Structure formats: structure tokens, C-alpha cells
């Protein structure tokens, strides 16, 4: 219980939730833009590659997954840090 209180002292819970909701909202806007711009233009070329060359499709597909993971990790980490959610990572309160 004492440890839980420590956590609350680090970052007030309400502020944490508010910042998290801001992150979700900002992230949501980025996602919509991403869906309309990137995925829209990626779909057809990848479908053609899928029909014509599965080996190239498999390699490029895995590459895309890895690249997107790295980019998304950077974006979400940046948002976490920018909105103060990074303070979650300081200290190790455990219960």
C-alpha cells in the first residue's frame, strides 16, 4: 500500500490518465493519416507482388513489419516521454 502511494506521489493518477488519453487521441490522428496515405498506396503494389513473386513479397513484407515496428516504437516512446508518461519508467514501485 505504501508502495502504491509512492507511485501516486510520482505521477498523480488523474494526470496520468489525462496524458494517456491525450496520447491515444494524438496517436489516433496519426493512425488515420497513416491509413489514408501509406496503406492506401501500399495495398495495390503489394497485392501485385503477392500475385507475381511470393519470395519478394515475403521478404519485403517482413521488412515492412520490422521497419514499421521500429518507427511505431519511436513514435509511441516519443509520445510517452512528451506527455510525461515516461515518468512511469523511473523508479520501480512493485506490489
Amino acid at each position, binding site marked *: 500500500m505504501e508502495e502504491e502511494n509512492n507511485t501516486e506521489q510520482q505521477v498523480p493518477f488523474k494526470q496520468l490518465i489525462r496524458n494517456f488519453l491525450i496520447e491515444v487521441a494524438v496517436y489516433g490522428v496519426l493512425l488515420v493519416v497513416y491509413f489514408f496515405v501509406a496503406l492506401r498506396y501500399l495495398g495495390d503494389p503489394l497485392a501485385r507482388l503477392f500475385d507475381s513473386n*511470393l519470395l519478394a513479397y515475403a*521478404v519485403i513484407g517482413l521488412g515492412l*513489419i520490422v521497419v514499421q515496428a521500429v518507427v*511505431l516504437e519511436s513514435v509511441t516512446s516519443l509520445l510517452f516521454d512528451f506527455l510525461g508518461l515516461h515518468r512511469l*519508467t523511473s523508479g520501480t514501485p512493485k506490489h
Partner: protein
Amino acid sequence: MNFPISGVYVDPIALVVIGFLVGILGGFFGVGGGFLAAPFMFWVGVPMNFVVGTDLAHMTGKSIIAFKRHRALGHVDIKLGAFMIVGTMVGVEIGAQIIELLEAHESVDSVVGILYIVILLLVSAFTAYEAIRSLRMMNSEGMDVNEVVGFQGVAKRIKSIRIPPMVSFPRSGIEEISLWMVILVGLFTGLLAGMLGVGGGFIRMPMLVYVLGIPTHVAVGTDLFEIIFSAGYGTLTHALKGNVDIIMALVMQTGAAIGAQIGAVSTQYFSGPRIRLFFSVLPLFGALMVLLRLLGIVAV
């Protein structure tokens, strides 16, 4: 949204939500979460032949995200993970070969399914028992929250086996252990994963804790490191068979990214025994899904 590769319309929001939920599980427990994602993907309209491959693709990306966060928190033993991958890959191939051999018998699905259910129930019961015991030890004996494990007998015996080469894993707190034991654990989990057709996260995480004696947080992070390679390998093989819709996986990954971050960060707020106690519920879901599949109620 139209997905031209699989040729279906699927609500992208549903895929993002599935990714988000599975991302939290993956980040927190170090599991792939295929047992949850696959039925939901099928339910929202993803064609059966694309479910497993696409899920593996999304799992690869999600594990990279959760791995990076766990690594920043110091929860990953890359050296240990790298050695285990060797055993895991060999184990997966042997398991797949065994299944091919057994397929001559009509009852193979039932036998493997029942075996899987029994293993998962045992893992669940044992993990719950041990975690509760550890929590009691923590409360009554004031033991270190990071060190307490209610069952250390096997790990001590494994560490006492001295078959060279002996290696150390400082990140995991292991001063000396036979490399063969590490590879054997990887082989065993890979064998089960290959035979049972599922990721090994259910089994690998408890094995890392109870057999190799690794702290729970490091076991979660190291398990994710392994999943990157096993799921990545699975993605390639399934993609070559035309069973992966990369666009769908990329959409799911957008939800998983934030879920995985939340799951990974949340691990700091729970002690090892508490994470293991929560984890003990997961294999029950896995067992339930296999039971429903055996009974023909769900298809994946």
C-alpha cells in the same frame, strides 16, 4: 477497409483493437498471444488461411516494440535468448516432423490436443500454486520482492550439472550454467511449439523462471526477444505459402504498438510473483481454445 491481398473487407478498427489487446498481453507477459488473436481475427472476417500467417507477422512487429521497451528497462538477456533460439529452432523443426509422422494416424489431432490441454492445465496450476506460495513468503518472511521464487529445486539442480561448456548470464543473475541445459530448454519449448502448432510463450516463460532460475521480468523480456525470431521465421514460411496479408498485419501492429508499450511499462508495477499469478490464468484460455477446437465449436 478493403484488403486486396486476402481479397476481403474487414473493419480496420476491429483489427487495431485486437492488436491493442494482444499487445498489452505480449508486453506484460512476454507471450505472442496467438491463442487470443487468431479466433478474434477469424471472427471479424479474416479468411481462415490468412489467420495464422498474418497473426505471426503482426506478432513479430509487436514483439520488437515490447522488446525495445523491456530492453530499455534492463529486462532482456540477449545472450541467453540467442543461445535458446538455437534450441528452439531445432525443436520446432523436430516437432513439426513428429507431427508429419503421426499424421498417418487419424487420431493425431485428438491426442496432440489432449496432450496440449493437459500440459497447459499443469502449467497453469503449478504457476498459480508457486506464485501464491511466493507471495505468502514475501509477506511472512519479508523476502526480496525480486528474488522470491516458491520453487527453486529444479533450477538449483540444473545449475549443478556441469557439462562443459559452462557459460554465465550476468543479466539473468546466473553465474554459471551448462550451455547444454540452456539449449535443451529451448529445444523442449520449441518441440512443444512445433508439435502443438502454437507459439511457445506459454511454456517458455515459466521454464525460464523455474528451470533456469531467471527473474520473472527478465524472463518476460527475453521471451519477447525469442518471439521476434520464431514469429519472424514463421512469417516468412507462411508468406511463401501465400498465407500472410501484410497490410492487415501492419494495421494490427498500429494498435499493438501502444498496447505493447503499456504492457511492458506496467510490468514495473508488479512483482515477479504477482506477474506469475496473473500469467497462470493465460494457459487456461489457451486450453479452452484447444478444447473448443477439438469439439468443433471454433475453427482456429
